[in-house]
Each structure stands twice: as C-alpha cells, then as structure tokens.
C-alpha cells in the first residue's frame, strides 16, 4: 500500500566526497555558504558579500545545503534553523559529525530566540548564534572575526 517514498536520506549515499580540486584552492577567497529559505535575504547577503573579498554560495533547502557544504567545503556557514527539507540543527550536527578535511565555522542565524534553542545550537557545535532580527553589519563583523 505504501508505494511512495519521500526519498529522504541523509547519512548514506553522499558520504562527503572531498573534491580534490576544491581543496587545492587554499589560496582562494574565503567561501561563505548561506543556508536560508528567505530568497530576498539571500539576495541581500549576496550583494553585500560580492563587494568584499569573499566567495558567496547559497542554498534555500536544508538538505541541499548540507550537500553543498560537503562538496564546496566553505569556510563559514550562515545557517537558518527553520528550513525546508532538513532542519538547521540536523544540518549542523551532520556537518560536525562528518569527516570533512576542514570543519567550517558555523553561525546560526535564526528567529528562534528561546534559551533552549540557543543552548541546543551551541551544544551541537555552532561557533556563534545570532537571532533575527539582526544587524547586517554585526553579521559581517562576526564572519570576519571567525575567519581570522
């Protein structure tokens, strides 16, 4: 009777295949990945980061974002928590548990502002937690600081 599958896997099939061509790019601009489902916010960030010495990649879905993170090996990830596909915390945990050659810095950027959410975020290995609404400048400063 259950002939359908929502085709949902996270731990299998896409074991992080470190793309060797990517790793060689050690001298590249820092790569920032933003996983967020608000399109216009992505666009704004895209614009801001473009004017700085950063490479910027985006994903609007938790699952896609995880995959992108594992193939692109970004330096910093800006992560939303309420995401379609896979919740942000699972993306975070999955990245932290993977054997990537280099763990990215992860900043959670979420409207979840309860104590417990923030606690969970740090527990699972986030480097920083910012709640929405946020100051654009502050995000940029925190990103820069994590990169140094």
């Amino acid at each position, binding site marked *: 009777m*259950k002939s359908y599958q*929502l085709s949902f896997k996270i731990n299998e099939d896409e074991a992080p295949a470190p793309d060797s061509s990517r790793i060689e790019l050690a001298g590249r601009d820092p790569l920032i990945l933003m996983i967020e489902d608000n399109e216009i916010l992505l666009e704004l960030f895209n614009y801001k980061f473009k004017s700085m010495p950063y490479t910027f990649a985006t994903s609007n879905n938790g699952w896609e974002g995880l995959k992108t993170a594992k193939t692109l090996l970004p330096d910093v990830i800006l992560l939303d928590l*309420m995401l379609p596909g896979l919740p942000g915390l699972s993306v975070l945990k999955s990245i932290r548990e993977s054997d990537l050659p280099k763990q990215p810095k992860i900043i959670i950027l979420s409207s979840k502002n309860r104590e417990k959410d923030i606690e969970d975020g740090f527990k699972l290995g986030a480097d920083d937690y910012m709640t929405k609404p946020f100051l654009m400048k502050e995000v940029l400063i925190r990103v820069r600081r994590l990169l140094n």
Partner: protein
Amino acid sequence: MSIAISMILVDLLTYLILAYFVVINTVYLVLLVISFFATRQLNKSREAYKITGLFDSDLYKSVSVLLPVFNEENTIKSTVYSLIQLDFNDFEIIIINDGSTDETFEVLEREFELFPSERFLPEILPHKPVQGIYRSNLFPNLLVLDKENGKKADALNAGVNASRKDVICNVDSDSWLEPNILQQMLRAFVEDEKTIAVGGIVRIANGSIFDRGQLKQTLAPKTFLGKIQVVEYLRSFLFGRIGWSSVDGLIIISGAFAVFDRAALIETGGYKRESIGEDIEVIVNMHQHFTDKGKPYSMRYLPEPVCWTMVPENWHQLSAQRNRWQRGLADTLFNHKKMIGNPKYGWLGMFSLPFHLVFELLGPLLELMSYLLFFLLMITGLLDPAFAILFILFAVLFGVILSIGSVLLDELTYKPYTRLSDVFSITIHAVFENFGFRQLHFWWRLRGLLDYLRKNKEWNIEDRNPKLTNTFHWLWFGSINLFFAALLVYGLVL
C-alpha cells in the same frame, strides 16, 4: 389482487427512491453553497489571525504530534523526517511503535540514534503496556514509545499520556504534512476559545512529486482508481466536511490529520479502543460528552491546513478500506443511537446524524435496490426505457455538477492542481465515477454494513486472495458498464 398489492409496493418504492434522490442531492447542493461562502469568509480573515508573535512559548499552544506505526520499516524514516521539518515554535513528535513485527523499531533506533529515556508516563488513558520509552540523540523533540500491539486507538492513547503539550495532533504514517500545517490549524484556537477539535483538508499524494521531504509539484494520480478518489476526496473534504462543520454537524475528522485539545480529549476518555473507526467515534463522543455536560465547545474544519495522504490504488485494498469505514460509521451511530433525532444535540442530533444514518449508512441499500427495481421495471415493460436512460443521465449530471463545484471550491484553497489537463481529467473522472465505480462502492459499503451486523470487528478483513479480488472487481466493473451500454443501445433503438 396480489398484482395490485405489488403494484402499490412498486409505486411506494419508486417514490421512496425518488425522494432519496431528491433529498440527498439537495442536501449536498446546499452544503456546497454553504461551504463556498464559509471558505470565502475564512479566506478573508486569514491574515488577521496569523499569530506572528514569538514570545515566551508558555503562553502559546504547544503541540504533540502523535504518529502510531505498525510495520512500516520501509517508510518510517521519510515520514519522521517530514514531521521533523514542521514549522512550529513548540512541538514534539511522539512515535508509538504499536508492536511492529518487522524492523520498524530497529530502523528508528539506528536512524535517530535512540537511547532509553526515563520519561514519566502517567497512566491517564488506558492502553497496552509500554515496554520502553526512547529519545533521539539527533532531535531533542523526538520521543519513541515501544509498546505491545493494541490497535490504533490504543497506541494513540499511550501517546496522549506521554504528551506534555496543550494540543494533540494525530497523523497517519502514510501522510505528508505541509510544513506550516500546525501554524494554520492554530488559527482555530485563536479564533475561538471553545475549540476542542480541528481538521484540515486531506488531499491525495499519489501522483504528486515529493523530493527530499518537500512537495515539488501537485499532480493528479495516474491510475483510474487514484483519479476517482481525487474526485471523492475533493467532494468529501471541500464541501462535505467544511459544509457540515459550518452548520455544527461535523461527525468525522480524518485520522490522517486531526488536532485535539489534550485536556478535552482526556476528559472524554480518549480514543475508544474497542471502536472500529476511532476517528469518527472520538468526534461523536466529544459532541455527546460536551453537550451532556452543558459545556460550550467548537469543532472546526479549516480549508488551509493541508495533509497529503497515500490512497490505495487497487481494488482489494480500496474495498477493504471502504468496508472498514462503513463499519466504523455503523459502530459509532449504533453506540450513540440516543443522539439520533434528539433535539438536545441540536443540528447534529436532528439533522446531521439522521442524515448520515439514512443516506450514508443505509443509502447503499436503497441505491442498490433502486438499480434492481429499475431493471425489473424495465424488463416487465413498466418503465419506459427512454425515461430510464434520461433519468440516469440526469442523476449522473447532478453528481458531476457537485464534483465540478468542488473543483471550483478547490480554487479557493491552498494548493490546487495547477495543470489544466488535471482539471479536465478530474472532471472526466467525475463522470466516469458514476458508471461502475459508484455501484461497486455501494456494494462494498453494503458489505461493510452486513459485516458489522455479523459483528466483525477486525480492523481490516483479511483478503486471502487479493489477485482474485482484483480480477473479480474488474469483471464486475466491466459488466456493469456493459449493462449501461446495452441500456443505451436499447434506448436508442427504440
């Protein structure tokens, strides 16, 4: 003499059938219109009651999503992932493994890194013993109860006991919920303090494209039975339930997605373990309880919260399902027979329940009798074949109008089928439905009624030979259509 009596009998029966036809269609038409206006009104005030404040969650309704599972090792993973991405501030997921005999629990344990928890499980509602309570290492809001096999109601009761939230939301393991479904259902509680139960639209997932837990495109199912059921579900949810709920005559909220106030559910004794259709029983039981206690309450159907469910696309499962539904209806109506026709229960007692008794429960009997009568009258020459054909055509067209009406209503809802070819195909199937499927459906329901009378309380009646049942159904389906074709030819020749 005896001929005269039989003539009178035939006459009586004819009038009865005509009256049945007129009443059922009028009621449906009225419901359709009511529903149209109700949906429009609901859409107007939609934005007003969107709760956007995110402060201290203690002041908001928190939700426990209950997922009873039994032998779902293949689908359980994806179902749980789809629940985890629900967009709501304060919710927990309680999976109740109802004594599965396959690897369901092991799959859960592996995938979600379960570890035993000492979670306190108060014995408020009765259920079979729980062997273990587990939490997930991955998702703090995921809880698994491992219990002895009871039935669905039994599993749900255990879930209600384990819940520590204000609101219970029970879902089926073959359903996929829109991520914002909980926020949308919350609206019922924001609008009306007395809300104790909320339902949403159930739509058919077969055919639509899901990717990584996201609905990518709404498409109609590919099979004949799938499409027919789309027509049925559109009618049943868009004007059936919304219409009935606007006149306070709601008697069922689909078990695929139903929301209850936890305290009200506990007060009414939870899910009835001995009932066949626990989803219908719980609603009627709540009606009775709260009316008897003189407490004001409200049960709502909203057009927005959408739940996608997989429906059977073969004859033997479909017939078993409909058989069960009919037995569930019979069981509930029998258990609450005191309410039927009782003015104390208002519209529900005076109108909705009697209507369901006569037209939904006994309707199949009348309808099948009318076919027989038609046939008899025709071969005895008492009925003009032209009249017969025209009458059938008239009846079919009426049904089609109701179906297209709901396709139009669909326009007002959240995620209609967007492809034009789907709209056409659904309309065509609304016509096809009347030839063959309708008769078989009535036959299943009649069988359900008979099975109930024979005290068959099994959840699903075991089908020993599904292949044979399927072939048999196709044969039946074919011969009914042959009969209609013969009738048409006969009428044309005359």
